[in-house]
């Protein structure tokens, strides 16, 4: 009770004070923006839409199934389904989102859209430097701003991206095998029978 | 004693300088406000701050007498210190008897302090 504890405490702060000039452990500041802390691979910020190939509109994986819109807890995704269809990566004719908006001002970065998406199409980005003075102009992201190439996905989440590519490849292979089987069956059937109508796209 | 009064003149200069030093930036700030940044008082802005709420009741309430008590004790010891200072300056040249006299003087006050301590007056409630 005679100041021993106080002196101990003073010694502790002194150790940190002098230590901060020599030891990394005692000077933990990351001098952002001059330097950045490397982000963990799993880091998630806001969703983006993956597209394959070079053309963002053609390659968009999203088929406007609207599951993410329904499951999104804060309801920040808005999708309008297209009237027409376009072929997807498997070559199947699919709907596509005529409008796909995400209001980043509402998004809670929970990743549930990614989990429920059956098409490996919506993923989480790691971009966080989005501060803006313009709430609607700067934070309401439209389809074009959301679309990012698969290469970007590979860059930020290599493990996940590889897994997701594998899933798609497997599905494509399955689809092709099915198509091949169907084609063979068709070929078999076509020999005696007249031409059958092509299989429906959806 | 011309010298002593001169030193008070220095004090006066210090006083004036100190006042100017305090008022100078305030005047500068006032000029800035006049020229560029108009003051915008308002009933909400100039209301008394109370953690974001409207202030209820007056702040100028009657305070407890404890503060007063401490002030008295302080006053007594302040006076004692005033007597102690000349004694201290003369201390080395004084006979032991004078030191004892001062000790008695101190002990008288200490006795008062101890008494007040014993009565629990020095315990802040």
């Amino acid at each position, binding site marked *: 009770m005679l100041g021993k504890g106080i002196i101990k405490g003073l010694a502790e702060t002194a150790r940190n004070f002098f230590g901060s000039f020599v030891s990394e452990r005692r000077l933990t500041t990351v001098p952002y923006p001059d330097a950045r802390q490397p982000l963990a691979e799993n880091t998630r910020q806001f969703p983006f839409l993956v597209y394959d190939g070079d053309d963002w509109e053609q390659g968009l994986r999203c088929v406007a199934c609207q599951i993410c819109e329904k499951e999104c807890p*804060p309801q920040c995704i808005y999708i309008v389904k297209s009237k027409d269809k376009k072929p997807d990566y498997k070559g199947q004719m699919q709907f596509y989102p005529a409008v796909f908006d995400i209001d980043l001002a*509402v*998004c809670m970065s929970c990743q549930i859209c990614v989990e429920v998406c059956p098409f490996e199409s919506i993923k989480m980005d790691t971009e966080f430097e989005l501060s803006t003075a313009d709430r609607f102009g700067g934070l309401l992201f439209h389809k074009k701003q959301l679309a990012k190439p698969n290469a970007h996905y590979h860059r930020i989440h290599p493990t996940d991206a590889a897994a997701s590519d594998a899933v798609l490849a497997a599905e494509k292979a399955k689809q092709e095998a099915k198509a091949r089987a169907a084609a063979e069956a068709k070929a078999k059937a076509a020999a005696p029978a007249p031409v059958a109508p092509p299989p429906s796209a959806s | 004693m011309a010298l002593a009064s001169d030193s008070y003149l220095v004090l006066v200069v210090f006083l004036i300088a100190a006042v100017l030093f305090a008022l100078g930036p305030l005047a500068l700030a006032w000029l800035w406000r006049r020229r560029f940044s108009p003051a915008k008082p308002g009933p909400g802005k100039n209301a008394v701050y109370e*953690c974001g709420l409207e202030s209820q009741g007056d702040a100028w309430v009657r305070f407890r007498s404890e503060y007063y008590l401490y002030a008295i004790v302080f006053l007594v010891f302040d006076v004692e210190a005033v007597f102690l200072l000349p004694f201290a300056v003369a201390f080395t040249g004084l006979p032991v008897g004078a030191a004892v006299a001062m000790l008695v003087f101190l002990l008288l006050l200490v006795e008062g302090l101890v008494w007040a301590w014993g009565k629990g007056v020095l315990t802040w409630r």
Partner: protein
Amino acid sequence: MMETALRSELRKQGIFLTTLEELYNWGRKNSVWPLGFGLACCAIEMIAASMARWDLARFGAEVFRPSPRQADLMVVAGTVTKKMAPQVVRLYNQMAEPKYVIAMGACAISGGPFKQGYNVLKGIDRYLPVDVHIPGCPPRPEALLHAFMTLQQKIAAQPLTGPHRPRHLIAAAPSEYPIPEFGAHDLVPPNNPEIWQPPSITPAA
């Protein structure tokens, strides 16, 4: 002759004004003291931003002033509920000019995940002019630092004179905003029409 003299005089004045303006903006942007208050989750990230790892102090902004009189920046960090909204507006009103607002996180911008709640204000911009929005729930501390630098850029670009000068230099512009009152079902009014109008809606294509 007259004209050139006048022009050079004007230029001198102009240079003086420009220097003054730059100095003014430099002083303002490098000494932004936030008001020490946090509302919800984002406040923790705000605290984290001022802690050792991110160290807001490097910008000279670690001086969290508890009293609004001495603060320059209000970081609305977290959900503004309807019960809290009048207090937030009053605190803003009681801050001395120049003052800035950062809406930190989804809740402060729009109500975020809680916007469906009956007691949640759907964005503080309904009552206060927001300078910078930071999306995220909660935004990373770096995002707050980024927003802080965005604010500094915004301050640096503000002219001292002329029609585009910031609000606090215009005598006619308001410095305080009406404080909503508690109604039987909702805040009255539910937004301040002076500064917030619902954006117009075009029907689906």
